[in-house]
């Protein structure tokens, strides 16, 4: 009996692994595609049927960070010889780098947009998670009048597709001078995320036995101290999970960023697709921008993976 069950168990394991493998492949295929595209020569990036084998090159990344113009005629051999290796890559592709009056290379707006994305996503995530945690704590621990109604109201802000209010938002933002500002997008993304953060954090805080705080209260701590010393460390897992979700939402947001910003505060999502090449859509540059754009979320999630995976309470309470 034991042998049979072990064998079937092993078989079940293998099937599970196979299924997970297939799902992982399906999920990773777009990432594989965009990453390989970022290293392909332009011709191969758009070839039909798609080419799988190619010689990787970093030309798209050079193009991503620079401004360029179409070459009008052949480059003189002296100029070509004098150019650094990365400029040669661009020249090989039939473009030249744009230079300013001093002859310095003009950088593209990508780094600025990327930094904008970081500032806006990080700040709004911190705000949404902090506000959400405090609010959730209040709802979880105190008798709040009309608690159910208030929580429903908070959730109801997410029941409308946000894009419906895009035009009114644009008009209001213009009226108060918030369009194309970091603060404007930070406020907007915080407002988006805070309702989500409240609900998520309430679930996590409800799970923390109130006896933890009560023990601290009896032992001479104020409620504030108990919150910081006991509740926050216990809620770390929930905070990490909430932060990841908020960060991803803010980081990926496209529609409002497109409508409410155009230069100073523009984030990467609306910027990347605007990276047309000179004369044609340069998919390799867009892919390069996308690959770099993927990294912060990947790193952030990777750093918090232990918190995301760890169980909430690990057995110091007997239920």
């Amino acid at each position: 009996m034991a042998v049979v069950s072990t064998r079937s168990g092993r078989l079940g394991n293998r099937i599970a692994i196979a299924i997970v493998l297939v799902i992982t492949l399906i999920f990773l295929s777009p990432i594989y595609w965009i990453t390989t595209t970022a290293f392909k020569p332009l011709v191969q990036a758009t070839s039909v049927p798609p080419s799988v084998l190619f010689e990787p090159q970093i030309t798209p990344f050079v193009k991503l960070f620079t401004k360029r113009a179409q070459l009008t005629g052949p480059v003189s051999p002296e100029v070509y010889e004098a150019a650094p290796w990365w400029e040669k890559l661009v020249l090989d592709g039939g473009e030249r780098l744009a230079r300013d009056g001093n002859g310095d290379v003009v950088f593209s707006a990508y780094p600025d947009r990327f930094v904008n994305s970081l500032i806006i996503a990080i700040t709004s995530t911190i705000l949404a998670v902090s506000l959400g945690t405090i609010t959730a704590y209040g709802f979880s621990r105190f008798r709040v009048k009309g608690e159910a109604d208030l929580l429903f109201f908070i959730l109801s802000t997410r029941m409308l597709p946000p894009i419906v209010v895009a035009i009114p938002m644009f008009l209001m933002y213009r009226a108060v001078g918030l369009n194309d500002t970091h603060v404007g997008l930070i406020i907007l993304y915080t407002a988006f995320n805070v309702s989500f953060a409240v609900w998520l954090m309430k679930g996590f805080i409800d799970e923390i036995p109130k006896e933890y705080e009560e023990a601290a209260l009896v032992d001479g701590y104020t409620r504030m101290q108990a919150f910081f010393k006991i509740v926050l460390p216990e809620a770390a897992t929930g905070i990490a999970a909430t932060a990841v979700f908020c960060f991803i939402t803010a980081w990926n947001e496209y529609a409002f960023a497109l409508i409410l910003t155009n230069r100073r505060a523009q984030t990467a999502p609306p910027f990347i697709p605007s990276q047309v090449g000179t004369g044609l859509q340069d998919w390799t540059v867009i892919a390069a921008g996308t690959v770099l754009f993927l990294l912060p979320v990947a790193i952030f999630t990777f750093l918090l993976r232990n918190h995301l995976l760890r169980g909430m309470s690990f057995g110091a309470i007997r239920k």
Partner: protein
Amino acid sequence: MTEIQLRNIDKHFGPVHVIREINLTVKDQEFVVLLGPSGCGKTTTLRAIAGLEDIDSGDILIDGKPVQNLHASERDVAFVFQNYALYPHLTVYENMAFPLRAVRQNREEIDKTVQSVATSLGITGLLNRRPSALSGGDMQRVAIGRSLVRRPKAILLDEPIGSLDAKLRESMRVELKRLHIENGSTSIYVTHDQVEAMSLADRIVVMHEGLLQQVGTPDDVYRYPANIFVAQFVGSPIMNMAAADISEGSSGVSVSLGGVSFAFPAALSGKLKEAGAQKGKVMLGVRPEGVLLSHEPKDGYVEVTSGIIEPLGSHDIVDLKVGDIVLRARTKSGFVAGPGLKVWARIDPAQAHFFDTTSGSSLEIRL
């Protein structure tokens, strides 16, 4: 010196009246157990003393000072929770040092105190572990240790060993008693387990539906229950209780239970009259050990039939069909061989309790 006084404590949870006008004084170094079924208000009373629950009216005095308006942190009491509430993100050492950090003691003092308390509890080997790596009994010791480090004015314990298995509960009971004798701290202990209450308490406070039913030493509460509730709540198996029909005969008083008459001393009728008992409104209670059995007919014994027998090793509990009721008797093991047998029984007058059926109060008759 710590004395805790409750004066007319009253509390509602919405429409539910959880504590009704409770008055109680816990003396210095006393171990008082609040005993009652779940929902009787015992835990709420304890939490109110700790400051974890507000009260509607009344005064809570610790050492003569009213504390009902103070925060829990200002009352200088310790609380041991049923689920221990050990902080999972801290080690045992840090858990025990936590209350001392609140009063900002320096590192050496904290270390000294934690080590000495850990030694007295025999948990020095666990100090670097996380609570999750502890057994139930050890978690319990750590929770007690955490309550002792601060040398609080009083220790409040809310069913601290309720979630342990039976065997461990027994040994922890002894340990708690030893600790209390060593430390002499004023303690209030909440439980629904009457065995725990009997074995630990200097005084037992029996509660039911937010009311104090009886306050007294374990012996008092067991031997002279103040009412039917206490009589049936304390003691295992529970006290036999039946409507008693009392009549005076030539040789004495006979008490009829379920249609069967048991002989009682003549003094009973006078005492019943004195206590103001009304005819037909008297309940008789007798613990199983107060039902005496004999194999052959004896003076004062009546014939009954045995029913189900519960052999418990050290003794048996035997169901007896007495007319249309069942009395349970405690006998030597194997005394009654099986169900359906003829035995003779009598009720020990010294162990009989008489209650007023209407009020449920004891008539305080001692024969």
